[in-house]
């Protein structure tokens, strides 16, 4: 049984506004084992980015607050650490890569400088040593002629190469956990395939865990060992990749999967839609947050918010329909 790298219990984080405290992430519980990839899937307003920023304690820089919950990383509690202590962990044990590689890199520093920065801060290497290491890393992430590239500036590289550089920076200190927030959304399809393959290879080599945030079910299907589906700030379903795709139990997950046109859907037919729109944070429905849009909503759903119901060892869902056994639904 692999050890747990990350354990989140009851995380509640969000922003303060005129209407009080808005919980962008409400009572989130997740775990991640060594070498595993967990995909957090959700649409806008689901709270997936807030969760990842909260783990890194970066949410405070955008005016957000962690109100409650525990984040345990390799046995250490992160919510009570100071920003200084977090600074020693970020880039070192936990690394993060973001959506837009062109803006994640500083345009006035060379690629080599940016990779070396992490090494010099966390491992105390000298500038020359760090540069040597940077060249090795660039080669490792598949950038040809790294000795030349290391002296170039970000604008001289394409989007795909920039994302590789970002990955190189993230992996410089061999982190145990990599958080990737929509790393391929801004990239072309063929480049996306290359980057995802790179991530898989690096994961196998370094044995690190990946927390991948995406809205693309295709990417989740390819990368994930386990998937957590988020809606309006809560996790509505969580399970292995096969649990979610073969036996989606929460009506939102089912709706999401049905809405995607696939190879099996007959061309030109009307697509399945989830009626209604995603609620705004300050105006969440009572009871189950999904009930106004759910085709199976009952009176109970309007009044009580469902807790997590275990469907199997690996699969849990937050829906009142599953009090005893799970129903298997075909896609």
């Amino acid at each position: 049984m692999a050890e747990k790298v990350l354990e989140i219990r009851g995380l509640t984080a969000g922003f303060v506004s005129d209407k009080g405290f808005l919980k962008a992430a409400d009572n989130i519980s997740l775990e991640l084992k060594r070498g595993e990839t967990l995909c957090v899937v959700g649409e806008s307003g689901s709270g997936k980015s807030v969760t990842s920023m909260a783990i890194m304690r970066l949410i405070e820089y955008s005016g957000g607050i962690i109100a409650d919950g525990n984040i345990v990383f390799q046995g250490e509690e992160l919510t009570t650490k100071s920003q200084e202590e977090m600074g020693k962990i970020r880039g070192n044990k936990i690394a993060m890569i973001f959506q837009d590689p062109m803006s994640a890199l500083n345009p006035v520093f060379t690629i080599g400088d940016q990779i070396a920065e992490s090494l010099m801060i966390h491992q105390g290497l000298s500038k020359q040593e760090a540069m040597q290491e940077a060249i090795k890393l660039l080669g490792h992430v598949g950038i040809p002629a790294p000795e030349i590239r290391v002296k170039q500036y970000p604008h001289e590289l394409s989007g795909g190469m920039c994302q590789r550089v970002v990955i190189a920076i993230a992996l410089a200190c061999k982190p145990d956990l990599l958080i990737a927030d929509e790393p391929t959304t801004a990239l072309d399809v063929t480049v996306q395939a290359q980057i995802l393959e790179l991530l898989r290879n690096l994961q196998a080599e370094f044995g690190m865990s990946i927390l991948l945030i995406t809205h693309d079910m295709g990417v989740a299907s390819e990368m994930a060992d386990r998937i957590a589906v988020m809606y309006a700030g809560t996790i509505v379903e969580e399970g292995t990749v096969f649990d979610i795709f073969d036996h989606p139990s929460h009506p939102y997950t089912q709706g999401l999967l049905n809405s995607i046109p696939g190879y099996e859907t007959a061309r030109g037919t009307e697509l399945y839609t989830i009626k209604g729109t995603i609620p705004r944070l300050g105006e969440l429905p009572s009871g189950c947050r999904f009930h106004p849009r759910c085709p199976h909503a009952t009176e109970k759903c309007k009044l009580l918010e469902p807790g997590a119901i275990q469907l199997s060892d690996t699969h849990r869902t937050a829906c009142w329909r599953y009090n005893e056994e799970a129903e298997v639904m075909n896609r």
Partner: protein
Amino acid sequence: MSELIEQEKVSSDSQADLRKPPGPWKIAARKFVRNPYAMVSVFVLLFFIVVSFSAPYLTPYDPAKIDFSSTNLPAFSEGHLLGTDELGRDILTRILYSGRISLTIGFSVALASVIIGTVVGAISGYFGGWIDTVLMRFVDVMYSLPTLFLNILVLAIFGNEFIYMILILSFTSWMGVARLVRGNFLQLREMQYVEAARAIGVPNRSIIFNHLLRNSIHPIIVNATLMVGSAILSESALSYLGLGIQAPQTSWGLMLSNAQEFMLINKWLAVYPGVCILLVVLAVNFIGDGLQQALNPRGKKHPVRRLNEWRKKFSKSAA
């Protein structure tokens, strides 16, 4: 289709506020009203405007009438609240009539230069290319002209009419607005709604004046307000030097100029007009600041103090 409208109704019901929410101007007005400096300044400016323009009803004196029998009376003398100057003219009356002139010049120059600057900047920024190059070089030329000498020249050639003062000041202060508007338009013309308007077939002049102008109005307004202040200062400076307003008309700058000789005898002759200039320009600047903060949609809605309180109340983490 009815299902689609249902979807709409679901979301608008859940928003629970069926009245029309306030538009951007109302929101800005609310923010402005909460700014104490700005509101006080509005009252001060209004006070000056009202009092200056109702001068004939407030004082019985003629600001230009010379009366050697009552020269240099101190403040609070009989019938003269602020005393008289070296020629026996009532100071309060002169202050009020000067206010008229200064405020008129200030607002007119601001209006004129903003209009000229906006038109030049909009055309320059929207079309780009050689039009932009030509107009911007023209702006550079205008910047390098020495305003003072230009003033002297114009006034020497055409005479000391009030209207020439306004014209010359306008023609030499529109460049800042032009550059500002041009910068704005350069950015805005890349917006997708401009492309959308072209795709519909909206003619260029409509795009400039309907679509883009509305989106750049905020910095223009702020700039216009600040220009009132600088116009008043310019006029005061010119009049002080004897190049602007001439007797029998009066302006604060002119009063300052007159008071120069008598500094040692009666320093108050300089203080009254000086304080008026100070108050009006300060008020205008505060209003400009207040407008800028009110119109800025991304401005901090909550003071830092309140944010920190909330943080302590809700946050679990120490930092």
